[in-house]
């Protein structure tokens, strides 16, 4: 028995305007139906014109996820009826998406294959309410037409922990690219896992799609619950039915939303209103250059080149602003004998607000907080004399060029003085006395 989980993740892009019209894409908390126009209301005669930036961001995300970018791509219409879908079809991509065949590596080394990354438009928002004595649904179309990228994985997951890590990594990449806030609570990032259980390792004949997951925590809980539920059904020698279920946080379980009696038939066909998109290699190269160094590269670099602890490297690169600040600070620090690790320590432990301080200022702060006590030269001289006298072997080693004993002697001297002083002064004194 093995869980088989595939993910569909939707990420809403934070472009200025919507996917196919000039309405502001920022709908959160806005008065209902005030960010609309003929295009996103689906008025008669209105036509879509795609947003260049949204398309580029979709391709950049694909590149960041190691996808192949086909040179030609097109939009298609996905036809279905729902009150939050004004046109009666969603402009999406069917057989020629912008990005194909990517991957994302988890910390345990497992590689999750990404089937495709494509561009589409968001639907409006339905609000269920009672007006008068009537149960109604109310429609706000401010969100209608907001650019949405869908990232579809292969059914490569077998547990909820990996799913959570994948989501966190995906969120981090999206934030690095600065193409979305990817906030699950706000609905910028939405997860729809497909869950089934294989008895013998082959792909099961059914799958259950779970909706209504709006946090990483819910994702874990919903998947764990669903696995347990399906296992119990299978134990009784029955097969779970193919359906869509929703996570109910109050009841702490998934509940059936709708059974797919027949496979949905979206009657896809090429969107006649939008000419296809064709890239040149040069354009794709340009997009690649716009992608910042991604977190997993940064972690490697910090660990290997800057010699900082891997746990710190992960934390420093959590978000791109901190990581970039860290790198600038390290660069300045190298001229002032401040080690990358001490920059990391300071950043991670002292609660530095990187927007209120410049890297140069931070270096100054680090240096000044590690100010040394000023003590009498004679006191240092005496201490060094004593240490050299008491450690003849070390003294000898130093003389024959075994420089590693220097650190030992410095430590001894520090212990003698019992105060924090600049090591440079001690080194100078040792050099003078051993000449």
């Amino acid at each position: 028995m093995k869980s088989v989980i595939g993910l569909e993740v939707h990420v809403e892009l934070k472009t200025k305007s919507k996917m196919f019209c000039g309405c502001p894409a920022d709908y959160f908390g806005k008065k209902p139906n005030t960010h609309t126009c003929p295009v996103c209301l689906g008025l008669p005669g209105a036509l879509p014109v795609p947003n260049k930036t949204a398309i580029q961001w979709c391709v950049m995300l694909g590149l960041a996820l190691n996808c192949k970018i086909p040179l030609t791509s097109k939009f298609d219409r996905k036809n279905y009826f729902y009150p939050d879908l004004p046109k009666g079809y969603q402009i999406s991509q069917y057989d020629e998406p912008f990005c194909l065949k990517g991957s994302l590596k988890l910390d345990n080394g497992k590689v999750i294959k990404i089937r495709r990354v494509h561009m589409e438009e968001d639907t409006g928002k339905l609000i269920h309410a009672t007006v008068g004595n009537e149960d109604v649904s109310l429609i706000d179309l401010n969100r209608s037409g907001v650019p949405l990228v869908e990232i579809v994985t292969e059914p490569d997951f077998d547990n909820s922990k990996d799913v959570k890590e994948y989501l966190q990594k995906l969120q981090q990449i999206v934030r690095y690219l600065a193409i979305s806030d990817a906030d699950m609570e706000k609905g910028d990032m939405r997860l729809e896992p497909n869950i089934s259980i294989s008895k013998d390792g082959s792909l099961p004949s059914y799958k259950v799609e779970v909706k209504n997951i709006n946090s990483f925590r819910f994702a874990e809980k919903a998947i764990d619950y669903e696995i347990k539920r399906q296992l119990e059904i299978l134990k009784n020698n029955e097969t779970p039915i193919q359906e869509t279920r929703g996570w109910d946080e109050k009841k702490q379980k998934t509940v059936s939303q709708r059974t797919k009696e027949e496979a949905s038939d979206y009657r896809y066909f090429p969107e006649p209103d939008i000419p296809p998109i064709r890239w040149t290699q040069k354009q794709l190269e340009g997009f690649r250059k716009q992608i910042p160094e991604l977190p997993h590269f940064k972690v490697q670099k910090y660990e290997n080149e800057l010699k900082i602890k891997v746990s710190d490297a992960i934390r420093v690169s959590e978000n791109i602003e901190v990581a970039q600040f860290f790198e600038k600070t390290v660069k300045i620090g190298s001229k002032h004998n401040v080690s990358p690790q001490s920059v990391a320590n300071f950043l991670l432990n002292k609660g530095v607000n990187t927007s209120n301080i410049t890297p140069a200022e931070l270096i100054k702060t680090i240096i000044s907080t590690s100010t040394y006590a000023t003590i009498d030269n004679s006191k240092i001289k005496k201490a060094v004399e004593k240490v050299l006298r008491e450690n003849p072997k070390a003294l000898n080693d130093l003389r024959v060029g075994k420089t590693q004993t220097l650190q030992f002697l410095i430590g001894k001297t520090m212990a003698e003085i019992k105060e924090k002083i600049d090591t440079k002064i001690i080194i100078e004194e040792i050099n003078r006395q051993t000449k």
Partner: protein
Amino acid sequence: MKINVKHVAKLANLPISKEEEKKLESQLSEILDYVEKLNSVITKGVEITSQITGLENVVREDKTESCLTQKEALSNAKNTHDGLYKVKKIL
């Protein structure tokens, strides 16, 4: 060619009466029989034409433009409530 009118009507979200169902079944069959003619064309290896302009990469800069007012947006709706379109409860 026989066509499952009920199923297609459901896909197309069209309310269709029993009478219409019968009539459509025969009319659509007749039309479909006629278009069967296409089968005699050899199209192996022929590219598809879904658009005729030959245009590519027609896109818009990411700039915002003015919107309709809420009043304008709702001006033709039969049922509204508090600035929202109103429908019978779904799901």
